[in-house]
């Protein structure tokens, strides 16, 4: 982040004249909505020959949606796309391929037991098999040589590292003849060194006359490795700038916006630390270390917000705190209970740790079961509704009725209605009703307003505040900085698996934004 962009000398030593040349791909007035949600709002974007164009923004800013439109995965509601001056209609991935547009997605589309050659051959039918296999090997070797990749083309893809699999994906796009190459958050899954190698390869691609879109949320990547930067926020383009014309603080402001959020009503009674997290490290089940060093305290009667761009370890942190994912090292201490690092998930619940997960339909509710069953399930475990041999249905139902009323869960026509039929907001209220029924001392809420409208999310926020006001320690993880700023008494910023900065409310939005997108 401190480095001064060094891209300017590329044009000095014979790079393309980016200010002068006409765009080879232009998207104008692109609008795309998913139901009521406007993902792209009248977006303009263009791409010149031989440039690396960084598309910068927070999660949910619309970067991927925009690129999915040009790759043929989403159909835009409005807007036009021109390639080399000609208007085109891109109805599917094959149209995009015909226009030489190729996209490398965040989730690789590879057949794991197949080798790289076989994977690439899949999209190129015809000809004799043996011949095309050899032809393909040659093509791959040639393209790989061009950008300095080395890939074992005959080993099963499953045995390759993530970085190598990514190279296979890039080669797949290149062999298909693409010269508009879109890379969606390519460095997010790589180590720093691998990321550097990839960025060098991207530069070589551009030097060979291709146009590259680098979708990223990383500021320094955009500043140091692109020729132009387009910043998106909330489905709109904020501006398109040259790296030499902006400073990191200016760019940060463009990413997180100028909106002054309402001043939060701060906690009146921050008490003793309820939960202490010390030097926490954890790895995902596939072995990738995602939580590298997390330290924080949450006191009674405060909301501790954890801000950060999605995918920096927030999901795993929730799993570690609730006991679903074991730690590699480090400790968790709960007030009056001591070290709970190795307590099981059910033990933690009985200690008063409640969780509102981000994906409520998968992790918080059983959609096929009734509202009443979903509400009562936690009470069934601790014996509130009878013994193991008998369940007191009547008691369950009256408790459900009371909770539905208290937490204003609407759309419940009967207690036996399936929970899947509830709307997002009401499903969330049902989850909260259940999680709060045991008066938990610790509440972990992960993106609690995801997919909710303004009214429902205000209701959810009020519930979190009331939990705080009765003395619970609330941990709020969210990618939505507005939500964090609105509710938190203190804010930690999570970046690359660590809490990299802490702020007391009212905090400086730009300082938080800087910590979120900064590298190291």
């Amino acid at each position, binding site marked *: 982040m401190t480095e001064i962009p060094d891209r300017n000398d590329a044009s000095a030593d014979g790079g393309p004249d980016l200010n002068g040349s006409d765009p080879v791909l232009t998207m104008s007035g692109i609008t795309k909505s998913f139901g009521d949600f406007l993902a792209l709002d009248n977006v303009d974007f263009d791409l010149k020959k031989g440039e690396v164009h960084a598309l910068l923004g927070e999660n949910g800013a619309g970067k991927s949606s925009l690129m999915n439109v040009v790759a043929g995965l989403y159909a835009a509601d409005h807007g036009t796309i021109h390639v080399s001056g000609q208007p085109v209609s891109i109805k599917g991935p094959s149209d995009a391929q015909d226009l030489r547009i190729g996209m490398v997605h965040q989730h690789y589309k*590879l057949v*794991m037991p*197949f080798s790289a050659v076989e994977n690439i051959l*899949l*999209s190129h039918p015809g000809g004799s*098999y043996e011949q*095309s296999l050899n032809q393909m090997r040659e093509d791959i070797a040639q393209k790989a040589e061009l950008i300095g990749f080395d890939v074992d083309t005959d080993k099963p893809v499953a045995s390759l590292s993530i970085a190598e699999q990514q190279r296979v994906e890039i080669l797949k796009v290149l062999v298909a003849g693409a010269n508009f190459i879109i890379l969606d958050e390519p460095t997010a899954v790589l180590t720093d060194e691998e990321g550097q190698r990839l960025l060098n390869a991207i530069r070589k691609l551009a030097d060979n006359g291709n146009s590259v879109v680098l979708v990223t949320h990383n500021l320094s990547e955009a500043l140091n490795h692109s020729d132009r930067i387009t910043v998106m926020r909330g489905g709109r383009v904020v501006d398109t700038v040259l790296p030499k014309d902006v400073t990191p603080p200016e760019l940060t402001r463009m990413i997180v916006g100028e909106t002054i959020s309402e001043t939060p009503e701060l906690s009146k009674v921050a008490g003793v630390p309820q939960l202490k997290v010390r030097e926490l490290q954890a790895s995902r089940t596939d072995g990738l270390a995602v939580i590298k060093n997390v330290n924080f305290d949450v006191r009674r009667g405060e909301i501790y917000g954890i801000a950060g761009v999605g995918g920096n370890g927030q999901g795993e942190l929730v799993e570690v705190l609730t006991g679903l994912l074991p730690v590699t090292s480090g400790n968790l201490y709960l007030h009056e209970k001591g070290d709970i690092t190795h307590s099981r998930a059910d033990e933690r619940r009985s200690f008063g740790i409640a969780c509102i997960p981000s994906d409520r339909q998968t992790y918080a509710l059983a959609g096929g079961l009734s509202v009443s069953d979903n509400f009562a399930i936690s009470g069934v475990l601790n014996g509130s509704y009878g013994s193991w041999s008998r369940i007191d249905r009547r008691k369950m139902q009256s408790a459900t009725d009371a909770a539905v009323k208290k937490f204003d869960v609407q759309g419940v026509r009967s207690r036996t209605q399936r929970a899947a039929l509830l709307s997002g907001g009401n499903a969330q209220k049902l989850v909260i009703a259940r999680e709060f029924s045991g008066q938990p001392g610790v509440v972990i809420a992960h993106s609690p307003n995801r997919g909710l409208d303004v009214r429902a999310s205000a209701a959810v926020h009020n519930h979190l505040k009331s939990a705080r006001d009765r003395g619970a320690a609330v941990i709020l993880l969210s990618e939505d900085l507005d939500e964090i700023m609105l509710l938190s008494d203190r804010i930690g910023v999570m970046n690359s698996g660590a809490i990299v900065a802490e702020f007391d409310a009212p905090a400086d939005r730009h300082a938080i934004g800087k910590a979120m997108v900064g590298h190291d």
Partner: protein
Amino acid sequence: MDFLINWLANIPGFAVPFALGAMGLIICEKSGVLNLGAEGYLLIGAMAGAGSVLSFGGYPMLALGIAALASAALALVFAVLVIFLRVNQVISGLTIVFLAQGLTSLIAGKQGWTNKAFTGLADLDFGPLSDIPLIGPVLFRQDPMVYLTILAFFAVSYVMNRTHTGLRLRAVGENPEASDAAGINVMMMRLAAVLVGALFLGLAGGYLTVVVSKIWVDGMAGGRGWIAIALVIFARWRLWRALAGAVLFGCIEALIPRVAAIGIQVPQYFVLMLPYVVTLGVMVWTSLRKDTLANDPSALGRPFVREERR
């Protein structure tokens, strides 16, 4: 010595239905469609084969063809259910078995095909070659289907591993989403795999009546479809291993009557149980060794639906 020659010469006839059935299942399941209806396709094939010979007065090869087509027709119902309507594949497969059991008994009864013997397919005559001691009866006194089955294994193995079609079929069973992105029509590929697989299963069924028993009896597949399913799991979806397994069970089946004939008592239910015991053992073994799962189609039993986010 006579015992040995007699035994060996009879093995291919017993092994062919298992081999063809397992091959059909592998083709279908490599595309990601779990097929538990094997017993049903065998029954339909067997009945259609017998019915054709009785109706047309001979032409055993034609009867085998009709057996294969009848099975494919039944498979079309199954394919529409599981591929396009995404009905649970386990339940649909089992339903096919029960449907075929009822349907074959009904049709054969109505048409008067049941328990009516006929002249089926004769063994090939290679002249003097057939009279070579030991080798003659074993290698050169078999019916044409035995030789065709071996040819079919070479052909299918080539298609599966050495052609674009095979690569695409396997891709669809491993990762339908990636295949879709590569421009493969996942649904049509699976439909084709189910139908072609059913052709072979029907052929296996037809073989039972037209070549082996030369008579149709209700429910005469006698669990061979289930053994074929067990064989596929035992072979971990590898063609040549499935052939080896088919020959192994052919050996066992051919041995039972001959051992009984020379006065040794083997409990037949023990022998009939063997394939399933072996399958259980193989499944336990493979689940303990994760690395051997590489050849299993990962998307087996998982319906494919293309979805736009949200």
